């Protein structure tokens, strides 16, 4: 309503709302370059312990990025993602042990099953607002842990052991050289990153962020709050379960506490919180810092007093939430225009 000088050179960009894709393309290139770089690391590192730490780091990167889809982009903070991780792990092992079916299929089965569980839980839990939702996720994951602890057919508290077989990509079993696991989980990390990247530019991604920022305003623009949460939840659960399946194959032995336990939920959540919730790079930055740090403290100090690594995690989170509540990624962003500002 202000007087604006007539602008005869109305460019095409003003006639539609498609955002410039150049910054998105740059992000994609950075991710591909980072992946390529990471793929070269094993050429210089042959130490078994270092390899284990790298694999776990990438796994938690993928997990936290999956969590980020629901927690970061859609704003539904789950502290019970261990339920999906555990479902993925158990589904993969059970399908292989009891049905002789390839773990590749097992991981997808676990993913789909976890998505269904996520939808069923979401149907009830997404009626709860904010903190109540978060509390419900903790309680439900703990209930799942108790169920599996008492499930004789699935090994109960003893868990399940994968038989040792020859190294093979078909069964994803590699006894000695863990390098293939590294490449598998690197690919999974990239995939989850690509999902988040795709979401940032997609209609659903805009909806989810709108639901996170102001659900009522989103509804007034025709966004279904419930459907948005359900969709984000299903996608998040799927990839969490796939990573759970990977974990089972990697360690070849699972028990309820190690895959359904609350510490898994924490480790899934923390990298994103540390790095930056709802950002493309937050989970990666967080996982690369947090997981090696946790592993190192656990192996060097943890021997006598186990749980030292948890103190380190806790201290980090306190520091971050006091100094940089938006996560470490926001340190890099201050010099650049904020997201969406690149016209």
């Amino acid at each position, binding site marked *: *309503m202000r007087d604006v000088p007539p602008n005869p050179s109305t460019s095409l960009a003003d006639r*539609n709302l498609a955002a410039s894709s150049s910054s998105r393309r740059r992000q994609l290139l950075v991710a591909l370059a980072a992946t390529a770089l990471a793929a070269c690391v094993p050429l210089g590192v042959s130490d078994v312990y270092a390899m284990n730490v790298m694999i776990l780091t990438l796994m938690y990167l993928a997990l936290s990025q999956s969590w980020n889809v629901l927690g970061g982009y859609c704003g539904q903070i789950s502290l019970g993602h261990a339920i999906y991780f555990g479902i993925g792990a158990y589904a993969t092992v059970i399908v292989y042990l009891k049905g002789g079916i390839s773990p590749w299929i097992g991981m997808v089965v676990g993913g789909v099953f976890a998505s269904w569980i996520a939808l069923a839980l979401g149907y009830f839990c997404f009626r709860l607002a904010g903190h109540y939702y978060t509390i419900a996720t903790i309680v439900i994951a703990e209930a799942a842990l108790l169920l599996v602890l008492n499930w004789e057919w699935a090994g109960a508290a003893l868990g399940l052991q994968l038989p040792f077989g020859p190294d093979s990509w078909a069964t994803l079993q590699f006894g000695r050289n863990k390098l293939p696991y590294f490449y598998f989980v690197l690919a999974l990390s990239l995939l989850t990153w690509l999902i988040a990247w795709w979401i940032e530019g997609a209609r659903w991604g805009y909806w989810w962020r709108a639901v996170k920022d102001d659900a009522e305003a989103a509804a007034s623009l025709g966004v279904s709050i419930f459907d948005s949460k359900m969709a984000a939840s299903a996608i998040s659960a799927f990839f969490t379960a796939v990573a759970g399946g990977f974990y089972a194959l990697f360690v070849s032995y699972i028990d309820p506490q190690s895959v359904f336990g609350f510490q898994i939920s924490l480790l899934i959540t923390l990298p994103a919180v540390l790095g930056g919730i709802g950002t493309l790079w937050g989970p990666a930055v967080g996982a690369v810092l947090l997981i090696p740090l946790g592993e190192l403290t656990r192996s060097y100090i943890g021997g006598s007093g186990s749980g030292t690594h948890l103190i380190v995690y806790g201290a980090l989170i306190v520091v971050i939430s006091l100094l940089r509540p938006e996560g470490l990624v926001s340190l890099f962003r201050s010099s650049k225009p904020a997201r969406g500002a690149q016209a």
Partner: protein
Amino acid sequence: MLEVAGLTTTYEGLVAISDVSLKVGKGEIVTVAGANGAGKSTLLKTIAGMEQRQSGSIHFEGERIDGVQPHLITARGIAFVPENRRLFPRLSVRDNLRLGSFLFRKRPDRDAPLDGVFSLFPVLKERLGQLAGTLSGGEQQMLAMGRALMTRPKLLMLDEPSQGIMPKLVTEMFAAIKAIRQTGVTILLVEQRLVESLEIADSAVVLQTGRIVLRGSAQEVRDHPDIRSAYLGA
């Protein structure tokens, strides 16, 4: 077009509006006046599906819409610009507008209202890349209305559009509302500024503690002795 009959909405146990009936014809501007707490906002929120009615019915284009979820009401062609605008402050102007347009699947459908929005509010075009939170109050109101228009509504409901904007922009805001009506959009307007809103409205209702105490054409309401003494200072 919109028919509200015997609508009662309670808010946390208190009756916010009681037995409100209202008709809005196609292409009209109807204004709802009343003091703070008279239930004006509750009326709009109930129509938009964000508050649940206690009793009564709401029909839009002959179909009953009370009890329908808010996002589906938007999809049927009722856009609601809530009080305080409710923009997404950390998103750019462009992305705020996009969020309105995402109701449609196809790109041409999404971009179709854009020329109209820009000719109404040229400043939005200049500010496309700016974060919505950094706009002035007047610009934010324009963006909120522009965003609502991106959903291509048949009925536009505005809650206090003149609130929090510079006095000299208020006249222009009312001119814009009039211009929106000229494009065929029906308007239900909640306003405290009775004088200005009666100038552009076809008819008006006055709410007092949740009940309609006066209704009529804009002219009739303006000439009513109670209104003249209470609002117009004459």
